[in-house]
C-alpha cells in the first residue's frame, strides 16, 4: 500500500486515469448527443471512432512534421463527419419512423460493414501512428515519468468539453439541440427543421468520435475491431451517466477511467468485471442513470397507429399441423444421406434455431430486446461442461440440468432488468451478460478461464444409446430441439402467449386489463433463458469443448440477427434466420475473409426493404399468389385468430 502514497506513482496513475477518461468522454459525448436528439443508440459510433484513427493513420503517411500532424488531427474528424452525413441521409433517415430495434440493427449492420471495409482497405494488422517528435517524448512530473502525449490529451479533452458547452448553451443552434433533446414533439411543433437538425447532430457526434479516434490513434494502436471494443465501454459510460445527458457522459467517463486504472493496480484479475458491475449497480439504484430522467417515450400504440403504411403485419394464419410435419420429416431423413460435415452443420443449425426461437419469445412476442442471451447460453454450456468433466454424471442428466441453471440465472438477471424498458432494458441485459462473461473468463480455478473446458466427455444415454458420432448427436439434438420448439410454439399460441403479445403491443393497456405486466415479462424472460440454456448445453455436447467466447456480447447479437433476417412476427422466422446465418457463416468463411461485410449488407437490406423478415415477405407473397390457387391455401393453411 505504501506505493499508493508515493507522489510520483500517484501522479502517473492519476494522469493515466485522466487520459483514459478523456478518450472515453470524446467518444461518448457524441454518442449521448446523438441519442438525445435522434433517439438512436448508435452501435456504429465505435466504428466512426475507428475510422478517425485510420484516417489520421492514412493522412500522416503523407503529411509529416508537427504541422502535418495538426492538419491530420483536424482533417480526420472532418472526414468522419462526411461519412456520417452519407450514413444519415442515405440510410438512417429512411427508418426514423420504425421501431427502435430497426434503428439499432441498422447501425449494427454498419458496424459489420465498416469493420470489413477497414480490413479490406487498411489490412487486418495493427497499425501504429507516429507522433511528431515534439510531443513524442516524456517528461518528469513529481518524479513520475509521463508521456507528453498524455498531457496533450488531458489538456485537449477539457477544451473540447468547454467548446461543447459553449456550442450547446451559448448558440442558437445549441439551444435548439437541447430543446429537441428534452422534448422532441415540442421542438417539432415549433417548426424546427428536423431533418437538417438530425443530419447536423449526427455528423457532429461522428466528428467527436472521429476526433477521439484521431487523438487516440497515436497513443494506442489501430486495428479493425478497435471500434467494437470501444463501443461497449462507451455504452457503459453513457448508460451510467444517463442516456442523452452530456454531463452524465463526463461523469461516467471519469468514473470508468478511474475505475479501470485503479482496477488494474488493485485487482488486476477482475479489472473487466468492475465496469460492468458498476453499471449494474448504478442501473439497479438509478434505472435511468446518474443524470438521466425517464425517457418521454411515446406510447408504442400511438406510434403504431400513426404508421399504418409501414406496418409490419403479424401473420394471421397458421400452417396446418400436417404441413408443419414436412420440415420435421426432412430433418429426419436428410442427414442419413449427408456427409459427416453436413451432419455437424445441421446440428449447429438446430442449436442456433432453438436459441433464436427462444429469443423471439422475448422480442417478437413480448416486445423485449434482450442483448444478454449469451449469458444463459453460456450458463447452459458451462453447466454441461463442468458437470461432465468434474463428475461422472450422464450426458442426458447434465443436459437436463442446463436449462434449470440458466433459468436461475435468468430469474436473477430478469428481476433487475424488467424494471427498465426499451434501450435501457437492452443495455442492462448487455451489462449483465458481460458481467457473466467477465466472471467466467477470470475464474480460472473453476471455469478454466480463457482456456475454457476441453475434452468434454459425451456419455451414452440411458439404455446404452451412444451419441458420440456426428449422426447420433444430430438425432439427439433433433429430439431435444423438436420438443423444446414445440413447447415454445404452444406457449406462443396459448392464452399466456396472447397476453404477452398484448404487452408487446401496449403494456399500459395490458396493465389495465388486470395483468401484472412486470411479472409476465419476467416469466417470459425466464422461459426464454431456460431454452437458451438448453441450446447452450447441446452446444457443449456437440463441440465437446467450450470457451468463454460463447458468452461474449457478440454471441448475444446472433439470435437478434437471425430473428431479424428470418422475421420477428412469425414463429418459424427465427429458425429460418438461423439457417441463413449458419449457412452463410460456414460458407462465406471458406469463401471470403469478409463474411461480416456480406452479413452486414444482408442485414442492411433486410432492415431497409424487408422489415418483416424473410418469412414475413414470403407470407405476404404467399397470400397474393395463393389467392389464385385457393385450394393450395386451403390445404396448407388454416385461418386462425392467433398469430
Amino acid at each position, binding site marked *: 500500500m505504501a506505493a499508493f502514497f508515493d507522489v510520483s506513482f500517484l501522479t502517473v496513475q492519476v494522469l493515466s486515469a485522466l487520459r483514459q477518461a478523456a478518450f472515453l468522454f470524446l467518444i461518448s459525448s457524441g454518442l449521448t448527443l446523438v441519442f438525445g436528439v435522434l433517439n438512436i443508440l448508435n452501435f456504429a459510433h465505435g466504428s466512426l471512432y475507428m475510422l478517425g484513427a485510420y484516417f489520421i493513420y492514412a493522412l500522416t503517411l503523407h503529411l509529416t512534421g508537427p504541422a502535418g500532424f495538426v492538419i491530420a488531427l483536424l482533417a480526420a474528424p472532418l472526414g468522419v463527419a462526411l461519412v456520417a452525413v452519407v450514413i444519415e441521409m442515405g440510410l438512417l433517415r429512411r427508418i426514423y419512423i420504425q421501431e427502435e430495434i430497426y434503428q439499432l440493427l441498422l447501425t449494427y449492420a454498419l458496424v459489420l460493414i465498416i469493420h470489413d471495409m477497414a480490413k479490406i482497405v487498411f489490412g487486418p494488422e495493427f497499425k501504429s501512428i507516429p507522433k511528431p517528435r515534439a510531443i513524442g517524448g516524456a517528461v518528469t512530473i513529481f518524479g513520475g515519468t509521463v508521456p507528453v502525449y498524455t498531457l496533450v490529451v488531458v489538456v485537449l479533452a477539457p477544451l473540447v468539453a468547454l467548446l461543447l458547452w459553449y456550442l450547446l448553451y451559448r448558440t442558437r443552434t445549441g439551444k435548439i439541440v437541447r430543446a429537441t433533446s428534452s422534448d422532441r414533439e415540442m421542438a417539432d411543433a415549433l417548426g424546427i427543421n428536423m431533418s437538417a437538425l438530425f443530419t447536423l447532430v449526427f455528423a457532429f457526434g461522428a466528428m467527436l468520435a472521429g476526433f477521439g479516434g484521431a487523438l487516440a490513434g497515436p497513443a494506442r494502436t489501430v486495428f479493425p475491431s478497435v471500434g467494437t471494443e470501444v463501443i461497449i465501454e462507451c455504452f457503459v459510460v453513457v448508460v451510467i451517466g444517463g442516456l442523452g445527458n452530456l454531463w452524465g457522459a463526463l461523469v461516467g467517463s471519469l468514473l470508468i477511467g478511474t475505475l479501470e486504472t485503479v482496477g488494474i493496480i488493485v485487482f488486476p484479475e477482475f479489472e473487466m468485471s468492475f465496469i460492468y458491475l458498476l453499471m449494474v449497480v448504478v442501473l439497479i439504484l438509478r434505472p435511468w442513470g446518474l443524470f438521466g430522467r425517464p425517457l418521454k417515450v411515446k406510447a408504442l400504440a400511438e406510434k403504431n397507429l400513426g404508421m399504418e403504411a409501414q406496418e409490419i403485419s403479424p401473420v394471421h394464419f397458421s400452417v396446418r399441423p400436417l404441413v408443419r410435419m414436412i420440415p420435421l420429416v426432412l430433418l429426419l431423413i436428410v442427414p442419413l444421406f449427408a456427409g459427416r460435415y453436413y451432419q455437424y452443420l445441421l446440428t449447429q443449425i438446430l442449436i442456433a434455431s432453438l436459441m433464436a426461437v427462444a429469443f423471439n419469445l422475448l422480442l417478437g412476442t413480448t416486445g423485449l430486446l434482450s442483448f444478454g442471451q449469451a449469458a444463459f447460453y453460456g450458463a447452459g454450456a458451462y453447466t454441461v461442461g463442468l458437470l461432465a468433466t468434474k463428475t461422472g454424471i450422464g450426458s442426458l442428466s447434465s443436459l437436463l440440468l442446463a436449462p434449470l441453471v440458466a433459468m436461475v440465472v435468468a430469474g436473477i438477471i430478469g428481476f433487475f432488468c424488467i424494471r427498465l424498458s426499451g434501450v435501457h432494458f437492452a443495455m442492462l441485459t448487455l451489462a449483465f451478460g458481460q458481467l457473466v462473461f467477465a466472471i467466467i473468463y477470470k475464474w480460472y480455478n473453476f471455469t478454466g478461464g480463457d482456456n475454457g473446458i476441453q475434452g468434454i466427455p459425451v456419455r451414452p444415454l440411458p439404455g446404452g444409446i451412444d451419441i458420440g458420432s456426428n449422426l447420433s448427436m444430430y438425432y439427439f439434438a433433433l429430439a431435444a430441439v423438436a420438443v423444446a420448439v414445440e413447447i415454445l410454439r404452444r406457449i406462443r399460441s396459448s392464452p399466456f402467449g396472447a397476453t404477452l403479445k398484448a404487452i408487446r403491443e401496449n403494456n399500459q393497456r395490458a*396493465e389495465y386489463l388486470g395483468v401484472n405486466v412486470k411479472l409476465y415479462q419476467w416469466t417470459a424472460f425466464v422461459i426464454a433463458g431456460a431454452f437458451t440454456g438448453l441450446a447452450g448445453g447441446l452446444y457443449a455436447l456437440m463441440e465437446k469443448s467450450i470457451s468463454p467466447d460463447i458468452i461474449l456480447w457478440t454471441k448475444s447479437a446472433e439470435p437478434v440477427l437471425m430473428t431479424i433476417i428470418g422475421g420477428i412476427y412469425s414463429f418459424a422466422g427465427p429458425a429460418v434466420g438461423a439457417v441463413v446465418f449458419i449457412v452463410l457463416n460456414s460458407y462465406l468463411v471458406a469463401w471470403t475473409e469478409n463474411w461480416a461485410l456480406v452479413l452486414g449488407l444482408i442485414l442492411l437490406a433486410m432492415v431497409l426493404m424487408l422489415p418483416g423478415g424473410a418469412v414475413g415477405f414470403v407470407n405476404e407473397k404467399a397470400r397474393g399468389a395463393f389467392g389464385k390457387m385457393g385450394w393450395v391455401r386451403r390445404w396448407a393453411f388454416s385461418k386462425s385468430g392467433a398469430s
Partner: protein
Amino acid sequence: MGAPMGLLEIRGVVKSFGGLRALQDVTFSVGQGEIRAIIGPNGAGKSTLFNVMTGLFPPDSGEVVFGGERISGVPPHRIIRKGIGRSFQITNIFPRMTVFENVQVALFAHHRSSRDPLGMARRYPSVAAETLDVLRQVDLAEKHELSASILSHGDQKRLEIAISLASRPRLLMLDEPTAGMSRFESRETVELLRGISREQGLTLVFTEHDMDIVFGISEKIVVLQQGAVIADGTPAEIKANPQVRKAYLGEEIQA
C-alpha cells in the same frame, strides 16, 4: 355524516408534481349506477385525478375508496381486478392484433386464464363466444377479423370501450370517450354507454369536453378548477351555479 356511502369515494385527495399542485383536497362521491361527469378547463386536473383513481400513481395524501375498500396506492392491475374498467384519452388498444384478439385477451385476463402457458388460445370456446358477445354490444362483431390498426378512429374508441367492458366492471372510467369522433359517432357512443349503464347497472365516471354530451347524459357533475372542486351537483344545479359560469362555462350553457 350518516349519508349512505357511494360506490366510489374520493376523500381529500392531494397530488403535486414538483412545485405544482395538480389536485388540492378533492372530495366527492359517486353512487352505485350513477353516470358522473368530471369537467373543468384544460389543466384543471381531470387527467391527474383519473390517474390517481386508477392507480397510475398514488395521491400525496387523501384516499380513494371503492366498494368500501381503499384502492389508492394499489397498482393498476389489482385495481382492475376489483371491478374497475378504464379507457384512455388517447386511443389505447392493441393495434397489431385483430379486433377479436383485443377483446379475447382482456377476457383471458379477466378469467385468469392468462396464466395458461400450454393450452391453445383457440381452444377456449366459452371465451370465444363471450368475446363475440362483448363485440356485439359495441357493434363491432362483424369486424372481428380485422386488424385493430385499420379501424376508423370511432371504431377504435369503441373497441377500447369493449376491452374495458370485457372484465365486467362495476365501475367504468372513461377519459374523454368521444375525443376525436365525428358528431354522429359521438352520439352513437353516448347512446351505447347510456344503454349499457342502464342495462347492467354499470356506474360510469367520465371526463368530456363536449358540453352537449356532459349535460345530455350525466346525472351528476363535478367541476374542477386549478385542481380543486368548485361545484358538485346535478346538471341543473351546475348550470345555475354562478361560480361555474364565471370560471369555466361562460356562454356555453345558456344555449
